[in-house]
Protein backbone atom coordinates (compact mmCIF):
# COMPACT_ATOMS: atom_id res chain seq x y z
CA UNK A 1 0.00 0.00 0.00
CA UNK A 2 1.69 3.16 -1.24
CA UNK A 3 1.04 6.82 -0.48
CA UNK A 4 0.90 9.22 -3.43
CA UNK A 5 0.75 13.00 -3.62
CA UNK A 6 -0.42 14.08 -7.07
CA UNK A 7 0.04 17.61 -8.36
CA UNK A 8 -2.77 17.85 -10.91
CA UNK A 9 -2.84 17.38 -13.88
CA UNK A 10 -1.00 14.05 -14.19
CA UNK A 11 0.26 11.70 -16.93
CA UNK A 12 -0.90 8.23 -17.95
CA UNK A 13 2.20 6.71 -16.30
CA UNK A 14 1.33 8.42 -13.00
CA UNK A 15 -2.24 7.09 -12.96
CA UNK A 16 -1.11 3.59 -13.93
CA UNK A 17 1.17 3.59 -10.89
CA UNK A 18 -1.91 3.69 -8.63
CA UNK A 19 -3.06 0.33 -7.20
CA UNK A 20 -6.20 -0.61 -5.28
CA UNK A 21 -5.61 0.08 -1.58
CA UNK A 22 -3.10 2.92 -2.17
CA UNK A 23 -3.75 6.31 -0.60
CA UNK A 24 -3.72 9.48 -2.67
CA UNK A 25 -3.73 13.18 -1.80
CA UNK A 26 -4.38 15.66 -4.61
CA UNK A 27 -2.96 19.16 -4.95
CA UNK A 28 -3.73 22.28 -7.02
CA UNK A 29 -6.73 21.64 -9.29
CA UNK A 30 -9.92 19.57 -9.19
CA UNK A 31 -13.05 19.69 -11.35
CA UNK A 32 -16.62 19.14 -10.11
CA UNK A 33 -19.06 17.38 -12.39
CA UNK A 34 -22.30 15.39 -12.11
CA UNK A 35 -25.53 14.13 -13.73
CA UNK A 36 -26.79 17.22 -15.56
CA UNK A 37 -23.27 18.33 -16.55
CA UNK A 38 -22.51 14.97 -18.13
CA UNK A 39 -25.92 14.66 -19.81
CA UNK A 40 -25.36 18.12 -21.33
CA UNK A 41 -21.85 17.26 -22.54
CA UNK A 42 -22.47 13.82 -23.96
CA UNK A 43 -26.20 13.64 -24.81
CA UNK A 44 -26.70 17.26 -25.90
CA UNK A 45 -23.29 18.01 -27.39
CA UNK A 46 -22.60 20.98 -25.14
CA UNK A 47 -18.93 21.92 -25.13
CA UNK A 48 -16.82 23.27 -22.30
CA UNK A 49 -14.01 25.79 -22.47
CA UNK A 50 -12.15 23.81 -19.77
CA UNK A 51 -9.35 21.42 -20.68
CA UNK A 52 -9.91 18.29 -18.57
CA UNK A 53 -6.86 16.39 -19.91
CA UNK A 54 -4.88 14.72 -17.12
CA UNK A 55 -7.28 16.01 -14.47
CA UNK A 56 -9.36 14.58 -11.63
CA UNK A 57 -13.15 14.92 -11.70
CA UNK A 58 -15.18 14.89 -8.50
CA UNK A 59 -18.82 13.77 -8.57
CA UNK A 60 -20.36 16.78 -6.84
CA UNK A 61 -22.69 19.75 -6.90
CA UNK A 62 -21.65 22.26 -4.25
CA UNK A 63 -23.46 24.63 -1.90
CA UNK A 64 -22.11 28.08 -2.81
CA UNK A 65 -22.69 31.76 -2.05
CA UNK A 66 -22.66 34.42 -4.76
CA UNK A 67 -20.02 37.06 -3.95
CA UNK A 68 -18.18 39.86 -5.74
CA UNK A 69 -15.33 38.42 -7.82
CA UNK A 70 -11.97 38.79 -6.06
CA UNK A 71 -8.61 37.04 -5.72
CA UNK A 72 -10.18 34.75 -3.07
CA UNK A 73 -13.28 34.13 -5.15
CA UNK A 74 -12.26 34.50 -8.82
CA UNK A 75 -15.48 32.86 -10.06
CA UNK A 76 -17.78 35.10 -8.03
CA UNK A 77 -18.76 32.09 -5.94
CA UNK A 78 -17.53 31.25 -2.43
CA UNK A 79 -17.64 27.59 -1.37
CA UNK A 80 -20.03 26.82 1.52
CA UNK A 81 -20.29 23.04 1.54
CA UNK A 82 -18.74 20.75 -1.05
CA UNK A 83 -19.17 17.00 -0.80
CA UNK A 84 -19.50 13.94 -2.99
CA UNK A 85 -22.48 12.28 -4.62
CA UNK A 86 -23.12 8.62 -5.53
CA UNK A 87 -21.07 7.74 -8.61
CA UNK A 88 -23.01 4.81 -10.01
CA UNK A 89 -25.53 7.06 -11.81
CA UNK A 90 -22.71 8.50 -13.94
CA UNK A 91 -21.45 5.06 -15.04
CA UNK A 92 -21.99 5.48 -18.79
CA UNK A 93 -20.01 8.73 -18.90
CA UNK A 94 -16.67 7.43 -17.58
CA UNK A 95 -15.53 6.07 -20.95
CA UNK A 96 -16.17 9.26 -22.97
CA UNK A 97 -14.61 11.40 -20.21
CA UNK A 98 -11.39 9.39 -20.49
CA UNK A 99 -11.50 8.75 -24.24
CA UNK A 100 -12.56 12.18 -25.52
CA UNK A 101 -11.40 14.52 -22.75
CA UNK A 102 -8.33 12.69 -21.43
CA UNK A 103 -9.52 12.75 -17.80
CA UNK A 104 -7.37 10.53 -15.55
CA UNK A 105 -9.13 10.27 -12.20
CA UNK A 106 -12.75 9.99 -11.09
CA UNK A 107 -13.46 10.74 -7.44
CA UNK A 108 -16.74 9.65 -5.95
CA UNK A 109 -18.52 7.45 -3.46
CA UNK A 110 -20.04 3.99 -3.68
CA UNK A 111 -17.96 2.85 -6.64
CA UNK A 112 -18.61 2.30 -10.34
CA UNK A 113 -19.28 -0.69 -12.58
CA UNK A 114 -17.53 -2.91 -15.12
CA UNK A 115 -17.77 -0.29 -17.91
CA UNK A 116 -15.78 2.21 -15.90
CA UNK A 117 -13.24 -0.43 -14.85
CA UNK A 118 -12.68 -1.34 -18.51
CA UNK A 119 -12.28 2.34 -19.44
CA UNK A 120 -9.68 2.78 -16.67
CA UNK A 121 -7.79 -0.19 -18.14
CA UNK A 122 -8.11 0.94 -21.78
CA UNK A 123 -7.15 4.61 -21.40
CA UNK A 124 -5.32 4.79 -18.05
CA UNK A 125 -7.55 5.95 -15.22
CA UNK A 126 -8.47 5.29 -11.61
CA UNK A 127 -11.36 5.74 -9.21
CA UNK A 128 -10.65 7.25 -5.81
CA UNK A 129 -13.13 6.76 -2.96
CA UNK A 130 -13.92 9.74 -0.79
CA UNK A 131 -16.02 9.23 2.35
CA UNK A 132 -19.50 10.25 1.23
CA UNK A 133 -21.51 12.41 3.59
CA UNK A 134 -18.33 13.87 5.10
CA UNK A 135 -18.76 17.14 3.25
CA UNK A 136 -17.91 19.55 6.09
CA UNK A 137 -14.47 17.93 6.24
CA UNK A 138 -14.11 17.78 2.45
CA UNK A 139 -14.89 21.50 2.23
CA UNK A 140 -11.79 22.27 4.33
CA UNK A 141 -9.65 20.77 1.52
CA UNK A 142 -11.00 23.29 -1.02
CA UNK A 143 -9.42 26.73 -1.11
CA UNK A 144 -11.52 28.45 -3.75
CA UNK A 145 -13.87 28.08 -6.67
CA UNK A 146 -11.57 29.30 -9.43
CA UNK A 147 -13.96 29.13 -12.35
CA UNK A 148 -17.30 27.73 -13.49
CA UNK A 149 -18.67 26.71 -16.87
CA UNK A 150 -22.14 25.58 -18.03
CA UNK A 151 -23.55 27.51 -15.08
CA UNK A 152 -27.06 27.53 -16.56
CA UNK A 153 -27.15 24.01 -15.07
CA UNK A 154 -26.51 25.43 -11.59
CA UNK A 155 -25.78 23.80 -9.16
CA UNK A 156 -24.86 20.99 -11.58
CA UNK A 157 -22.39 23.25 -13.37
CA UNK A 158 -18.85 22.31 -14.33
CA UNK A 159 -16.74 23.66 -11.45
CA UNK A 160 -13.00 24.25 -11.21
CA UNK A 161 -11.74 24.17 -7.62
CA UNK A 162 -8.38 25.19 -6.21
CA UNK A 163 -7.50 22.50 -3.67
CA UNK A 164 -4.92 21.95 -0.94
CA UNK A 165 -4.20 18.48 0.52
CA UNK A 166 -7.40 16.99 -0.92
CA UNK A 167 -7.47 13.60 0.81
CA UNK A 168 -6.22 11.09 1.75
CA UNK A 169 -8.46 9.15 -0.64
CA UNK A 170 -8.33 5.41 -1.23
CA UNK A 171 -7.73 3.96 -4.69
CA UNK A 172 -10.79 1.71 -5.03
CA UNK A 173 -10.57 0.92 -8.79
CA UNK A 174 -7.34 0.94 -10.79
CA UNK A 175 -6.10 0.59 -14.38
CA UNK A 176 -5.07 -3.04 -13.85
CA UNK A 177 -8.59 -4.46 -13.46
CA UNK A 178 -8.63 -4.12 -9.68
CA UNK A 179 -11.90 -3.12 -8.01
CA UNK A 180 -12.41 -3.15 -4.28
CA UNK A 181 -16.20 -2.93 -4.88
CA UNK A 182 -16.24 -6.04 -7.06
CA UNK A 183 -14.26 -7.88 -4.38
CA UNK A 184 -16.68 -6.81 -1.62
CA UNK A 185 -19.69 -7.79 -3.80
CA UNK A 186 -18.24 -11.26 -4.45
CA UNK A 187 -17.55 -11.65 -0.75
CA UNK A 188 -21.12 -10.62 0.19
CA UNK A 189 -22.58 -12.98 -2.41
CA UNK A 190 -20.49 -15.80 -0.94
CA UNK A 191 -21.76 -15.07 2.58
CA UNK A 192 -25.41 -14.76 1.48
CA UNK A 193 -26.44 -18.42 1.81
CA UNK A 194 -25.18 -18.70 5.41
CA UNK A 195 -26.82 -15.39 6.39
CA UNK A 196 -30.18 -16.47 4.90
CA UNK A 197 -29.97 -19.92 6.50
CA UNK A 198 -29.53 -18.31 9.91
CA UNK A 199 -32.66 -16.22 9.19
CA UNK A 200 -34.56 -19.37 8.25
CA UNK A 201 -34.99 -17.81 4.83
CA UNK A 202 -32.85 -19.91 2.49
CA UNK A 203 -33.71 -20.18 -1.22
Amino acid at each position, binding site marked *: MAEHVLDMPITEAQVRALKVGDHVTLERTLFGIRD*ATLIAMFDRDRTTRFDLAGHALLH*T*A*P*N*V*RKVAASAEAPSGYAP*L*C*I*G*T*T*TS*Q*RMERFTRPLLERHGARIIIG*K*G*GMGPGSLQAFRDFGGAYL*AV*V*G*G*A*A*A*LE*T*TWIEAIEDVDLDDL*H*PESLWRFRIRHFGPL*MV*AMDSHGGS*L*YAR*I*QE*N*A*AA*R*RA*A*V*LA*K*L*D*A*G*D
Partner: protein
Amino acid sequence: MELDTQELEELSKTLYVRALKLLPRDIKAGFADLQARETDATGRTVLATMVENIAVAERTNNLLCQDTGIPIYNVTIGRNVTFDGVAMKDAIRRGCERATTEHPLRSSVVHPLTRRNEQTSCGVRIPIINVDFDDRDETVEVEMIPKGSGSENGSFLQMLIPADGVAAIKRFVVDRVIELGGRVCPPTIVGVGIGGTSDLCMHLAKIAATRPLGTTCVDAEGAKIEAALSEAVNELGIGPQGLGGRATAFRVHVEVAATHITMNPVAVNIQCHSARRASAVITPGGIAFV
Protein backbone atom coordinates in the same frame (compact mmCIF):
# COMPACT_ATOMS: atom_id res chain seq x y z
CA MET B 1 -53.93 27.33 21.31
CA GLU B 2 -54.02 28.95 17.91
CA LEU B 3 -51.18 28.00 15.57
CA ASP B 4 -49.25 31.14 14.64
CA THR B 5 -48.35 30.80 10.95
CA GLN B 6 -45.64 33.49 11.10
CA GLU B 7 -43.96 31.55 13.90
CA LEU B 8 -44.36 28.32 11.95
CA GLU B 9 -42.73 29.86 8.86
CA GLU B 10 -39.67 30.92 10.90
CA LEU B 11 -39.52 27.51 12.54
CA SER B 12 -39.73 25.68 9.20
CA LYS B 13 -36.78 27.72 7.99
CA THR B 14 -34.76 27.16 11.17
CA LEU B 15 -35.46 23.41 11.27
CA TYR B 16 -34.19 22.88 7.71
CA VAL B 17 -30.83 24.51 8.47
CA ARG B 18 -30.62 22.90 11.92
CA ALA B 19 -31.26 19.43 10.45
CA LEU B 20 -28.49 19.92 7.90
CA LYS B 21 -25.91 20.93 10.54
CA LEU B 22 -26.59 19.02 13.76
CA LEU B 23 -26.77 15.25 13.74
CA PRO B 24 -29.33 13.86 16.25
CA ARG B 25 -27.94 12.47 19.51
CA ASP B 26 -29.17 8.93 18.82
CA ILE B 27 -27.21 8.79 15.53
CA LYS B 28 -24.04 10.03 17.25
CA ALA B 29 -24.50 7.30 19.88
CA GLY B 30 -25.03 4.84 17.03
CA PHE B 31 -21.64 5.78 15.58
CA ALA B 32 -19.94 5.16 18.95
CA ASP B 33 -21.60 1.75 19.09
CA LEU B 34 -20.45 0.83 15.55
CA GLN B 35 -16.91 2.05 16.22
CA ALA B 36 -16.67 -0.14 19.32
CA ARG B 37 -17.64 -3.22 17.28
CA GLU B 38 -15.81 -2.60 13.99
CA THR B 39 -12.88 -4.97 13.46
CA ASP B 40 -11.95 -4.15 9.82
CA ALA B 41 -9.09 -1.63 9.46
CA THR B 42 -10.67 0.22 6.51
CA GLY B 43 -14.05 0.19 8.25
CA ARG B 44 -12.54 1.76 11.35
CA THR B 45 -10.81 4.47 9.29
CA VAL B 46 -13.99 5.33 7.40
CA LEU B 47 -16.09 5.49 10.59
CA ALA B 48 -13.45 7.74 12.20
CA THR B 49 -13.65 10.10 9.20
CA MET B 50 -17.45 10.26 9.53
CA VAL B 51 -17.20 11.07 13.23
CA GLU B 52 -14.54 13.69 12.51
CA ASN B 53 -16.89 15.23 9.94
CA ILE B 54 -19.64 15.61 12.57
CA ALA B 55 -17.19 17.56 14.74
CA VAL B 56 -15.96 19.69 11.81
CA ALA B 57 -19.55 20.56 10.85
CA GLU B 58 -20.28 21.72 14.41
CA ARG B 59 -17.00 23.63 14.75
CA THR B 60 -17.29 25.40 11.38
CA ASN B 61 -21.09 25.78 11.57
CA ASN B 62 -21.29 23.97 8.23
CA LEU B 63 -23.62 21.43 6.65
CA LEU B 64 -22.81 17.79 7.44
CA CYS B 65 -23.39 16.73 3.83
CA GLN B 66 -23.67 18.75 0.63
CA ASP B 67 -26.94 17.00 -0.24
CA THR B 68 -29.70 19.26 1.03
CA GLY B 69 -32.11 16.49 0.11
CA ILE B 70 -35.80 16.46 -0.62
CA PRO B 71 -37.38 18.47 2.19
CA ILE B 72 -39.97 16.56 4.24
CA TYR B 73 -42.00 18.15 7.05
CA ASN B 74 -43.96 15.92 9.43
CA VAL B 75 -46.50 17.94 11.40
CA THR B 76 -48.29 16.34 14.35
CA ILE B 77 -51.17 18.34 15.77
CA GLY B 78 -52.44 17.70 19.29
CA ARG B 79 -55.80 18.42 20.93
CA ASN B 80 -57.29 21.88 21.40
CA VAL B 81 -55.25 23.45 18.63
CA THR B 82 -56.97 25.70 16.11
CA PHE B 83 -55.31 26.20 12.78
CA ASP B 84 -55.89 27.20 9.17
CA GLY B 85 -54.58 24.17 7.29
CA VAL B 86 -53.99 25.97 4.00
CA ALA B 87 -52.11 28.79 5.73
CA MET B 88 -50.13 26.20 7.68
CA LYS B 89 -48.91 24.48 4.52
CA ASP B 90 -48.10 27.83 2.87
CA ALA B 91 -46.06 28.85 5.92
CA ILE B 92 -44.00 25.65 5.83
CA ARG B 93 -43.36 26.09 2.12
CA ARG B 94 -42.24 29.70 2.60
CA GLY B 95 -39.94 28.69 5.46
CA CYS B 96 -38.38 25.98 3.30
CA GLU B 97 -37.87 28.42 0.43
CA ARG B 98 -36.39 31.10 2.72
CA ALA B 99 -33.90 28.64 4.27
CA THR B 100 -32.69 27.93 0.75
CA THR B 101 -32.36 31.51 -0.46
CA GLU B 102 -31.32 33.17 2.82
CA HIS B 103 -28.73 30.70 4.20
CA PRO B 104 -28.13 29.98 1.20
CA LEU B 105 -28.51 26.25 0.52
CA ARG B 106 -28.13 24.28 -2.66
CA SER B 107 -31.58 23.66 -4.11
CA SER B 108 -31.65 19.96 -4.89
CA VAL B 109 -35.21 19.90 -6.26
CA VAL B 110 -36.13 19.88 -9.98
CA HIS B 111 -39.23 19.34 -12.10
CA PRO B 112 -39.27 15.60 -12.93
CA LEU B 113 -39.65 16.10 -16.70
CA THR B 114 -38.06 19.44 -17.57
CA ARG B 115 -35.39 19.01 -14.81
CA ARG B 116 -35.75 22.74 -14.15
CA ASN B 117 -34.40 23.83 -10.74
CA GLU B 118 -36.33 26.77 -9.25
CA GLN B 119 -33.42 27.28 -6.77
CA THR B 120 -35.92 27.28 -3.87
CA SER B 121 -35.90 23.61 -2.74
CA CYS B 122 -39.60 23.73 -3.66
CA GLY B 123 -41.52 22.39 -6.64
CA VAL B 124 -44.67 20.52 -7.56
CA ARG B 125 -45.83 18.82 -4.31
CA ILE B 126 -42.44 19.55 -2.68
CA PRO B 127 -41.74 20.09 0.20
CA ILE B 128 -43.56 16.96 1.27
CA ILE B 129 -45.86 17.90 4.16
CA ASN B 130 -47.33 15.03 6.18
CA VAL B 131 -49.99 15.97 8.72
CA ASP B 132 -51.08 13.70 11.54
CA PHE B 133 -52.78 14.08 14.91
CA ASP B 134 -52.09 12.87 18.45
CA ASP B 135 -53.58 13.40 21.91
CA ARG B 136 -51.06 15.84 23.41
CA ASP B 137 -52.90 18.92 24.63
CA GLU B 138 -52.17 22.28 22.94
CA THR B 139 -49.08 20.93 21.20
CA VAL B 140 -47.84 20.98 17.62
CA GLU B 141 -44.70 19.01 16.76
CA VAL B 142 -42.81 19.76 13.57
CA GLU B 143 -40.16 17.36 12.33
CA MET B 144 -37.97 18.29 9.35
CA ILE B 145 -36.15 15.61 7.35
CA PRO B 146 -33.84 16.58 4.47
CA LYS B 147 -33.91 13.19 2.74
CA GLY B 148 -30.68 12.54 0.87
CA SER B 149 -30.90 11.10 -2.63
CA GLY B 150 -28.03 8.61 -2.48
CA SER B 151 -30.01 6.57 0.00
CA GLU B 152 -33.46 7.46 -1.39
CA ASN B 153 -32.43 5.95 -4.74
CA GLY B 154 -32.09 2.71 -2.76
CA SER B 155 -35.87 2.24 -2.55
CA PHE B 156 -37.75 -0.88 -3.56
CA LEU B 157 -41.25 -2.33 -3.43
CA GLN B 158 -42.14 -5.94 -4.01
CA MET B 159 -45.75 -7.14 -4.02
CA LEU B 160 -45.01 -10.60 -2.66
CA ILE B 161 -47.88 -13.08 -2.27
CA PRO B 162 -48.94 -15.09 0.81
CA ALA B 163 -47.34 -18.30 -0.55
CA ASP B 164 -43.94 -16.54 -0.52
CA GLY B 165 -44.17 -16.28 3.26
CA VAL B 166 -42.04 -14.34 5.73
CA ALA B 167 -38.88 -16.00 4.37
CA ALA B 168 -39.27 -14.08 1.10
CA ILE B 169 -39.58 -10.79 3.01
CA LYS B 170 -36.29 -11.43 4.80
CA ARG B 171 -34.60 -12.57 1.59
CA PHE B 172 -35.81 -9.44 -0.21
CA VAL B 173 -34.23 -7.18 2.43
CA VAL B 174 -30.89 -9.02 2.51
CA ASP B 175 -30.66 -9.08 -1.29
CA ARG B 176 -31.41 -5.37 -1.62
CA VAL B 177 -28.69 -4.54 0.94
CA ILE B 178 -26.18 -6.65 -1.02
CA GLU B 179 -27.25 -5.10 -4.33
CA LEU B 180 -26.92 -1.54 -2.99
CA GLY B 181 -23.44 -2.04 -1.53
CA GLY B 182 -21.75 1.31 -0.92
CA ARG B 183 -24.08 3.40 -3.11
CA VAL B 184 -26.42 4.34 -0.24
CA CYS B 185 -23.65 5.67 2.02
CA PRO B 186 -23.48 2.95 4.67
CA PRO B 187 -23.66 2.53 7.63
CA THR B 188 -27.36 3.01 7.00
CA ILE B 189 -30.69 2.60 8.71
CA VAL B 190 -32.50 0.04 6.55
CA GLY B 191 -36.19 0.94 6.66
CA VAL B 192 -38.53 -1.95 5.95
CA GLY B 193 -42.29 -1.66 5.43
CA ILE B 194 -44.34 -4.84 5.69
CA GLY B 195 -48.03 -5.02 4.78
CA GLY B 196 -50.62 -2.39 3.88
CA THR B 197 -51.23 -1.32 0.29
CA SER B 198 -48.37 -0.57 -2.10
CA ASP B 199 -48.25 3.13 -1.18
CA LEU B 200 -48.67 2.55 2.56
CA CYS B 201 -45.98 -0.14 2.48
CA MET B 202 -43.51 2.32 0.93
CA HIS B 203 -44.51 5.00 3.44
CA LEU B 204 -43.96 2.55 6.30
CA ALA B 205 -40.45 1.93 5.00
CA LYS B 206 -39.77 5.69 5.13
CA ILE B 207 -41.16 5.94 8.68
CA ALA B 208 -38.90 3.02 9.64
CA ALA B 209 -35.81 4.52 7.97
CA THR B 210 -36.26 7.85 9.75
CA ARG B 211 -37.23 6.46 13.18
CA PRO B 212 -34.70 7.29 15.93
CA LEU B 213 -32.11 4.65 16.81
CA GLY B 214 -32.93 2.92 20.06
CA THR B 215 -36.62 2.63 19.25
CA THR B 216 -38.25 -0.70 18.47
CA CYS B 217 -41.14 -1.70 16.25
CA VAL B 218 -44.26 -1.64 18.45
CA ASP B 219 -45.59 -4.80 16.80
CA ALA B 220 -44.04 -7.85 18.51
CA GLU B 221 -43.66 -9.88 15.31
CA GLY B 222 -42.19 -6.87 13.51
CA ALA B 223 -39.71 -6.40 16.37
CA LYS B 224 -38.52 -10.00 16.03
CA ILE B 225 -37.78 -9.62 12.30
CA GLU B 226 -36.14 -6.25 12.99
CA ALA B 227 -33.69 -7.83 15.46
CA ALA B 228 -32.88 -10.80 13.23
CA LEU B 229 -32.32 -8.66 10.11
CA SER B 230 -30.19 -6.17 12.06
CA GLU B 231 -27.74 -8.98 12.86
CA ALA B 232 -27.91 -10.46 9.37
CA VAL B 233 -27.04 -7.37 7.31
CA ASN B 234 -23.90 -6.77 9.39
CA GLU B 235 -22.59 -10.22 8.52
CA LEU B 236 -22.35 -9.42 4.79
CA GLY B 237 -18.97 -7.65 4.99
CA ILE B 238 -20.10 -4.60 2.98
CA GLY B 239 -19.08 -2.15 5.69
CA PRO B 240 -18.87 1.66 5.89
CA GLN B 241 -19.06 3.19 2.38
CA GLY B 242 -19.10 -0.34 0.94
CA LEU B 243 -15.32 -0.53 1.34
CA GLY B 244 -15.46 -3.55 3.65
CA GLY B 245 -16.20 -4.11 7.32
CA ARG B 246 -18.90 -5.06 9.75
CA ALA B 247 -20.82 -1.79 10.01
CA THR B 248 -23.16 -2.02 7.01
CA ALA B 249 -26.12 -0.72 9.01
CA PHE B 250 -26.77 0.97 12.34
CA ARG B 251 -29.94 -1.09 12.44
CA VAL B 252 -32.78 -2.49 10.36
CA HIS B 253 -36.08 -0.85 11.34
CA VAL B 254 -39.42 -2.46 10.55
CA GLU B 255 -42.90 -0.92 10.47
CA VAL B 256 -46.00 -3.00 9.80
CA ALA B 257 -49.60 -2.50 8.73
CA ALA B 258 -52.43 -4.99 8.24
CA THR B 259 -52.77 -6.14 4.66
CA HIS B 260 -55.18 -7.99 2.35
CA ILE B 261 -55.64 -11.79 2.49
CA THR B 262 -54.09 -12.06 -0.98
CA MET B 263 -51.14 -9.72 -0.35
CA ASN B 264 -47.69 -9.85 1.29
CA PRO B 265 -46.00 -6.58 0.29
CA VAL B 266 -42.52 -5.53 1.42
CA ALA B 267 -40.75 -2.21 0.83
CA VAL B 268 -37.23 -0.98 1.51
CA ASN B 269 -36.20 2.64 2.01
CA ILE B 270 -32.70 3.48 3.17
CA GLN B 271 -31.42 6.30 5.38
CA CYS B 272 -27.72 7.12 4.92
CA HIS B 273 -25.25 7.58 7.80
CA SER B 274 -25.89 11.31 7.66
CA ALA B 275 -29.29 10.46 9.16
CA ARG B 276 -30.43 14.02 9.54
CA ARG B 277 -33.64 15.23 11.11
CA ALA B 278 -34.65 18.07 13.43
CA SER B 279 -37.76 18.53 15.54
CA ALA B 280 -39.41 21.20 17.61
CA VAL B 281 -42.54 21.37 19.74
CA ILE B 282 -44.80 24.42 19.74
CA THR B 283 -46.88 24.94 22.91
CA PRO B 284 -48.51 28.03 24.51
CA GLY B 285 -45.18 28.41 26.41
CA GLY B 286 -43.18 28.81 23.17
CA ILE B 287 -40.94 26.69 20.94
CA ALA B 288 -38.65 23.96 22.27
CA PHE B 289 -36.23 22.04 20.05
CA VAL B 290 -36.41 18.32 20.73
